[in-house]
């Protein structure tokens, strides 16, 4: 059933391409969400359901919501309302919807059929992921936490307003 993998990959590539060519940030975000969902499905078909779940929870979930909120918050006021109406034109949401429907169809197929693993890949569950993350790759996890610290301190410094002359 390698075809499932290729369909999901094609959706990911198309969605990413369309995302890059959109002029409006919100439209681009819609395609980005579809692209991330498709990538999650790719992970699933390759035998990594845990990573697929993380991809959806963290990227399509948390990070995208953050993006959408930031974009929306930057667009307040009367002009934004007119823009909102503009955004609800079907031509804008049909594209992402079609791609999403393809993905849903694939998910339904995967869930209703028993053996849908691709390329003979073994399924790697959360247990195994945790064991390697907190076993041999423990240092990597710690380094990633330092990476977040660096990003956080940098964002804090650049993002804060200047105090009055001390």
């Amino acid at each position, binding site marked *: 059933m390698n075809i499932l993998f290729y369909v999901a990959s094609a959706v990911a590539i198309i969605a990413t391409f369309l995302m890059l060519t959109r002029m409006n940030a919100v439209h681009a975000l819609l395609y980005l969400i579809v692209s991330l969902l498709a990538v999650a499905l790719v992970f699933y078909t390759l035998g990594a359901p845990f990573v697929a779940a993380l991809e959806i929870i963290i990227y399509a979930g948390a990070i995208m919501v953050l993006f959408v909120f930031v974009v929306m918050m930057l667009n307040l006021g009367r002009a934004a309302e007119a823009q909102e109406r503009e955004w609800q034109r079907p031509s804008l949401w049909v594209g992402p919807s079609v791609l999403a429907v393809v993905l849903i169809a694939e998910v339904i197929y995967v869930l209703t059929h028993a053996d849908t693993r691709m390329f003979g890949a073994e399924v790697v569950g959360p247990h195994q992921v945790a064991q390697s993350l907190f076993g041999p790759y423990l*240092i990597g996890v710690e380094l990633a936490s330092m990476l977040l*610290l*660096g990003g956080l301190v940098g964002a804090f*410094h650049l993002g804060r307003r200047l105090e009055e002359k001390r």
Partner: protein
Amino acid sequence: MHPVDLIALLPLLILAATSIVVMLTIALHRSHRLASLLTLIGLICAFASLWVARTLTPTEASPLLEVDSYAVFFLGLVIAATFVVVILAYDYLEKQPVNREEFYVLLLVASLGAGVLIVSAHFVSFFLGLELLSVALYALNAYVFTRALPVEAGIKYLVLAAGSAAFLLLGMALVYARVGTMEFSQIGGLVSGGGHLLKDPLMLAGLALIVTGVGFKLAVVPFHMWTPDVYEGAPAPVTAYVATVSKGAMFALLVRFFYVTGASSLGPVFLVFSVIAIASMLVGNLLALLQSNVKRILAYSSIAHLGYLLVAFLAAGRWAVEAVAFYLVAYFITTLGAFGVVTVLSNGERDADSLADYQGLFWRRPALAGIFALMLFSLAGIPLTAGFVGKFLLVRAGASSALWNLVVILVVTSVIGLFYYLRVIVALFASPETAAPSPAPSPAVSASGASTLVVLSALLVWLGVDPAFMLQVIERAISSLKLL
């Protein structure tokens, strides 16, 4: 993971712990002096712990990190360079209208990233180290965000570094897809074991993308576009850091990765690096001739210097690694010294980077001008400076592998390089009558800054006159590197 492994990683652990301690101290009590003192103490402890770590080497602390004497040597270099940057940055930051303390947290995180790059033996730690370094540098480049140039530098670096990281990641994925392992030593076993890998398109494409990612960090032609702008825009101490620690750590990793995997002996890879080396030497030196901004001149000169280093890298073998290590030491001292002078001359409004600022500096500040001239002599490779010995070793390494084309270009472009170094030196000693009408910024130099510059100059001359000791240290350090 054993407790013993943790002791081997002590230098990195201390760097990480210091950054957290400094951050928490800032939260409780914001004091520039305290933050910089804690940072210096942490760096001294990390440096001292190198001797503890050395007794345990070589040890594979985890599949990701390999602490050997080669790594210990470069860790020492990086920690020492960070120490110098912290001292130079203290006075510089005092003059800036932004919060000063976070600088040290970011600097320590960046140094941790550089350290991880040096000890990494696995793609995962390679990438994490690179990102640690990059993310901290995004913020450091734009640290003085009240001015336009640093912000521009930060954004340029952000976009290009993120792009190059994507290239690198895809390259790693392709190599992994082909060989099925991310450990350098296992990749090396497969490359040397099977000749078919030499012609495998997937493997070569992966290596090409990895070269792109590495080339960006080293700022070699054609991945050098960001260098002059970032050098010019970033605050002077950060520029010193980008020029030394970031490039040095990446070069240490380049040597380890390509020698351990044996990929540098692959025909196409060798060719690509030769072209990059030649292009870097030519473009760096020729474009430097056209600049009138000291920071930009130093940026193009650093592109050329990385090209010189690649000549030795291509030569391969013990002599080559020795030459690379010595040249990096000389380059670190020289670059820190040169940017150190720029740093102490800068004020809160702008960095002292235009050539006019240095017009007749000798008559106003004889000591500073003398030190700056000395650093430029070393960059140009004039005898009795460390730069000369370094260049001599590079030529010896190149000649011993009969890379005559590269060696000839190295020598010719070095002569071209003399011109623009001399241009700056001539400006330094220009008579006061021809000095710029608007007096350049010339703030008072603190005792710590002045003594740092004096120590750097002394080191420079010492290595130039009597390099035997350093060469001995390097010889012992590189003995751990498994050369194919």
